[in-house]
């Protein structure tokens, strides 16, 4: 396959940045999108040009690092995948592909396609945990009875990899899907109950402070989420927050 790539290039956080056109040739349709990017970077290095900076780590859909907005969609045109799981067979020979960083004020660009997602870490630190004393006498988790439904839903919520595609795709740059997944995974389990009130209040407060937008229920996040995190989690967080606010 021969392709034209329109890629966002930005030297650093304070650079204005711009779209730059590149040609890549002899791309196999079996390659992953990141492998295609590797080919491009090798070509650039061979020409003594600066390679395109992009985030990646596991390359198997579990770390959530590979943030790219491809042809107007977070992680590109396929569903239920991250960019590293996107295959070149999803594109046509001769196609022009636009590649941009995830956009949101709360995700500032560091360089080219690399963005700073520390805002997610700070939201997690505000309440995405349970305080358990692990000094040797930890109770076996299986000793606590949990209904199958609750366990399944908590597990589904816990599959969120913090990739930020929900924010990137949201016209409001809202982080509700991410935060609601993190709130839900504990809210559904008995271990999460003790800190439930503070957790949801603090995590939402941190989310707002980070400058994420207001959710208007467009549902785009659910469609683009590589892990299929459901909008039901947002509804659950809305209930949790309402109850927590009334309780104080």
């Amino acid at each position, binding site marked *: 396959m021969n392709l034209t790539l329109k890629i966002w290039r930005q030297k650093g956080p304070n650079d204005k940045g711009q779209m730059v056109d590149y040609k890549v040739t002899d791309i196999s349709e079996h390659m992953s999108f990141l492998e295609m990017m590797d080919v491009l970077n090798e070509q650039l290095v061979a020409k003594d040009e600066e390679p395109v900076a992009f985030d990646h780590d596991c390359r198997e859909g579990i770390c959530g690092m590979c943030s790219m907005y491809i042809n107007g*969609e977070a992680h590109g045109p396929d569903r239920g995948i991250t960019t590293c799981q996107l295959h070149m067979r999803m594109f046509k020979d001769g196609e022009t592909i636009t590649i941009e960083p995830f956009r949101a004020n709360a995700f500032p660009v560091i360089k080219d396609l690399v963005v700073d997602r520390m805002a997610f870490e700070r939201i997690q630190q505000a309440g995405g945990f349970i305080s358990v004393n692990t000094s040797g006498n930890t109770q076996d988790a299986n000793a606590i009875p949990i209904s199958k439904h609750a366990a399944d839903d908590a597990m589904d919520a816990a599959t969120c990899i913090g990739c930020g595609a929900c924010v990137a795709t949201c016209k*409001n740059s809202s982080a509700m899907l991410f935060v609601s997944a993190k709130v839900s995974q504990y809210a559904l389990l008995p271990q999460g109950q003790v800190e439930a009130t503070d957790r949801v209040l603090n995590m939402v407060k941190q989310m707002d402070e980070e400058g994420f937008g207001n959710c208007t229920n467009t549902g785009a996040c659910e469609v683009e989420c590589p892990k299929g995190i459901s909008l039901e989690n947002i509804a659950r967080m809305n209930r949790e927050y309402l109850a927590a606010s009334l309780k104080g």
Partner: protein
Amino acid sequence: MSGFLSSSLARKYAMALSAFFLIFFLLMHVTINLLSVCSENAFNVASHFMGTNPLIQFAMQPILIIGVVFHFVMGFVLELKNKKAQGVKYFKDNGAANSTWMSRNMIYSGLAILAFIVLHFIDFWIPELKYKYVDVLPEDPNRYFHELQHKFENPLRVGAYIIAFVFLALHLLHGFQSAFQSMGLNNKYTKGFEKGAKAYAIVIPLLFIFIALFHHFNH
């Protein structure tokens, strides 16, 4: 914005609750308007009651106005805040791939409805206030039906009404079921709400359109 409305979720509840209130008002409004199709007398009686009952006039009407103004102002505030949160725009953004046109353009359908409400005020409300409080004309319990018929003689006005109600349907198609989601009502037991909300979003504006056309062609 301070206090309760300083949190994004509080704003979400406020938007949803004012929406529920306005949706309930629409149901009441369409019910009274439908009377005009069935019986001139019934419509006059209902309108006379609504126009003269002190509870409706001095309690419900101000609440309604506050509800409308609040929903609009909050809509604009949210739109501005969200624009700010997004920062740099995408070079290419394919919103249609993951969300409906209605959900992405609530501000525009909302603006169209706002324009209609202004027209509606000029058409019905201001003449009504003038009749009652400026000219202080004697109350005539039989005037309402003819006033209504007279308004719908003009095809331009009927056309504007139809366009406005199409926008109302688009706004409600996303807005009504979205309000349930905002209040946390979305799980495997509540799927019926979503269907009911979509049916409401289509049926109510269609009834308003039907009433306008009915009076345009039957006078």
